[in-house]
């Protein structure tokens, strides 16, 4: 570590990589599993859902930074309630703005936005960001990394499931059991990334 600017950038880089692959939200923290299993049937949909996730995560991170700075020092017991209420209403507000200003983007993300708001990955991001005492910039990078990780997991899963559709699988195994086993193997593969941290310090 050389210190100064490089140090900061390096740290941000590791926050990003860590959130994206090493501590992937879906595959090592089990967050956002409902869409992971529910919407990962088709590749295109999965990718769009991933993008919508990144979008909501970034807004969440900003909201959480704001609440952590101005509201929660005075009333820490309101943390959970205020996170939920503020995040849900901000996402709804931004959704209306996008609908008005960027209808193309809205059509791509639209249906997913209200669903994502009650996704555990979103609330977890706000909680992790708080417990790790990330600032605004670190929080944003963390949100982007986590979102990229969710998208990666969704797209990989959708690709695998599209393949599995075409192969002959015993009838008993089809459905949730098979998806869980696929996810387990994917999670096993992602554990390999844990080595990144021990070598990098």
């Amino acid at each position, binding site marked *: 570590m050389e210190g100064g600017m490089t140090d900061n950038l390096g740290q941000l880089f590791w926050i990003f990589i860590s959130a994206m692959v090493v501590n992937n939200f879906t595959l090592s923290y089990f967050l956002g599993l409902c869409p992971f299993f529910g919407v990962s049937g088709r590749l295109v949909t999965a990718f769009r859902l991933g993008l919508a996730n990144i979008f909501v995560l970034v807004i969440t991170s900003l909201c959480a930074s704001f609440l952590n700075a101005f509201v929660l020092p005075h009333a820490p017991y309101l943390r959970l309630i205020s996170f939920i209420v503020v995040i849900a209403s901000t996402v709804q507000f931004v959704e209306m703005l996008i609908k008005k200003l960027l209808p193309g983007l809205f059509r791509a993300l639209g249906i997913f936005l209200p669903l994502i708001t009650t996704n*555990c990955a979103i609330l977890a991001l706000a909680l992790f960001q708080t417990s790790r005492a990330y600032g605004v910039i670190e929080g944003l990078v963390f949100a982007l990394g986590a979102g990229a990780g969710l998208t990666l997991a969704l797209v990989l899963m959708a690709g695998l499931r599209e393949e599995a559709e075409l192969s002959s699988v015993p009838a008993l195994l089809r459905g949730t059991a098979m998806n869980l086993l696929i996810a387990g*193997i994917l999670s096993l593969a992602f554990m390999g990334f844990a080595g990144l941290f021990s070598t990098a310090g």
Partner: protein
Amino acid sequence: MVGPGDTGHGDTGLGDTPGSYEEFVKGLWRENPVFVQVLGMCPALAVTNSAVNGLAMGGATLFVLFMSSLLISSLRSFIPKAVRISTYILVIATFVTVADLSLQALAPTVHRELGAFISLIVVNCLILGRQEAFASKNPVGRSLADAAGMGLGFTLALVLLGGAREVLGKGALFGVSLFGEGFEPWVVMILPPGGFLMLGLLLLLFAWIAEKREKLLDEAESEPDLDREAA
């Protein structure tokens, strides 16, 4: 809703209010939140690396579900339709805060181990689902029976999952070592992939048992000894 006649438990007429009893029993197994409805997966997989953690998580969820159902079914005629979901979430978040702070005070070690996942009970779709599907439409007694059944079923599933992972991954159950020195732990079972794999295997096992049972019932209605084959 399934009628009281076709449970696998056989003793439906036991309670003095068969309706409530039926609501209670269905969550334990036939409509088990984790194994049958596949709800509340995040906590079910994230914290079940030991039986104790599964029990703590299940207990906290049971508490939140029970209290939320109590409040929401008592207030169900006062909650406006348009804002009902936000109301449920606020009620749930309040009880989760209570559970979180209580656990922090009473069992700090468990609280540290479960970490953010206690707070994440708020977004457990099982709880919101029961409020929307049941507590908002049924009287208090039945709602409480439903909540208790679903909560206990959830706890049961979590303890089963956590126990199985702990036995394979650490060679212990509830912290008590089972196999002695020579046991080589299957470490991956207490790591994240183990959660996915174990739940997948359990679902597979249950599907297999169900299929066996059905086949046996089809083949010989009079065969009395079903459990031998199913086990």
